[in-house]
């Protein structure tokens, strides 16, 4: 399409890649955390809860800075990722995805936890008596009943990751084609006087992306409802 300049295309696709990867990696982690917070009772619970909220409370730039300190090539954690998994984050799109994922985490955990806590445990019991083990019960009963929370988590997380700026620029820098996502491109445009039109176009792209995610999620929710999940969706 010619409505977008090549650079805009590049930025758009990169943003999609970064947010997509962030969601794919963070979803299971966030779900596991939500599960632990909803179902387990252990002494460190509130500390874990606080830790999950951290990226929400701290200014994004500080989160980015902490990531930088933790994952620097010469830091222990950074060395572990580099040596054991061959993953480096600094100045890489994977770093942008990590930053976006970390910033989205608290929102996703809360939404899923809310839905998990509302699941009627008696229905899980019924599934067990019908021969479903823990895992099958989880997959066939708990997860579908918590689906509204999972969908909400995905929408919130995706939107948040599309808009993520501070942690990304601090941790992954602002490298064209590698870590310059939509918000960073907007930041660049904002530095140039008289570039309102470009800012508007890029912001419009962000809005469009998340509108798509929103429509998709509402459609999925509606499909769920149509299948009889009246009171859950």
């Amino acid at each position, binding site marked *: 399409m010619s409505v977008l300049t090549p650079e805009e295309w590049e930025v758009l696709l990169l943003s999609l890649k970064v947010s997509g990867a962030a969601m794919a990696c963070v979803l299971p982690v966030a779900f596991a955390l939500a599960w632990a917070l909803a179902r387990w009772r252990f002494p460190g619970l509130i500390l874990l809860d606080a830790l999950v909220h951290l990226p929400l409370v701290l200014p994004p730039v500080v989160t980015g800075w902490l990531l930088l300190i933790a994952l620097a090539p010469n830091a222990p954690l950074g060395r572990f990722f580099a040596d054991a998994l061959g993953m480096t984050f600094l100045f890489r799109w994977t770093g942008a995805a990590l930053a976006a994922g970390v910033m989205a985490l608290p929102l996703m955990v809360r939404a899923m936890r809310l839905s998990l806590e509302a699941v009627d445990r008696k229905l899980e019991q*019924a599934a067990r008596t019908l021969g479903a083990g*823990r895992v099958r019960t989880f997959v066939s*009963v708990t997860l579908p009943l918590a689906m509204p929370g999972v969908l909400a988590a995905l929408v919130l997380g995706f939107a948040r990751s599309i808009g993520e700026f501070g942690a990304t620029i601090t941790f992954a820098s602002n490298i064209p084609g590698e870590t310059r996502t939509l918000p960073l491109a907007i930041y660049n445009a904002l530095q140039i006087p008289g570039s309102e039109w470009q800012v508007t176009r890029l912001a419009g792209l962000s809005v469009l992306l998340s509108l798509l995610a929103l429509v998709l999620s509402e459609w999925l929710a509606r499909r769920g409802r149509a299948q009889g999940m009246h009171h859950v969706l």
Partner: protein
Amino acid sequence: MSFDVDVTLQRGGRSFEYRFRTEKGGLTALFGTSGAGKSTLLDMIAGLVRPTSGRIAVAGETLFDSAARIDLPPEHRRCGYVFQDLRLFPHRNVRENLLYGWKRARPEHRWLDVPTTLEVLGIGHLLARAPRSLSGGEAQRVAIGRALLSGPRFLLMDEPLASVDAQRREEILRVIERVRDELRRPILYVSHDRSEVDRLADRVIPIGAAGTTSPPAP
């Protein structure tokens, strides 16, 4: 022996004690006032509530034994449990509810086929419906069907016919009698309806008032 129960349970400051044995096969009715602990007993046999101590065996298989540290998970106990509060899966339609246990049962364990179940329970026209849109009696019949189709080794039925009309009740009672006599599956049956109990039960276990011991049945 069908049911061999000797357990105690401490809950909410009350203590429940159950001790009874029944001969092989047949239908055992639990009779007792509201709040006596009938549903609690079924929950323990199904593996949903853990007794404080004691032993539960059904048809020769030990399901729970606090001394021997045996506690079979519910999914391995193969009980067909019709819950007092039904517990249909709200996110699945009637067909999926009915087949939930059936799909998971080994073929050689299934002893009732789907068409017969639909026929007897009169729920063939409800297959595509959401549980939430069912009438009270319709939901109850689906819950019965779901339990029967899971190929259970024994049945736990908690007032399964409370909201079922007289005519349908007759047909369902006949099925239960067949399960009892032909298949010889042990059945534990809770009902407040004297005539139902008189007709079905080979024996009646009285569940005493709050917290008292149920003496072993003869």
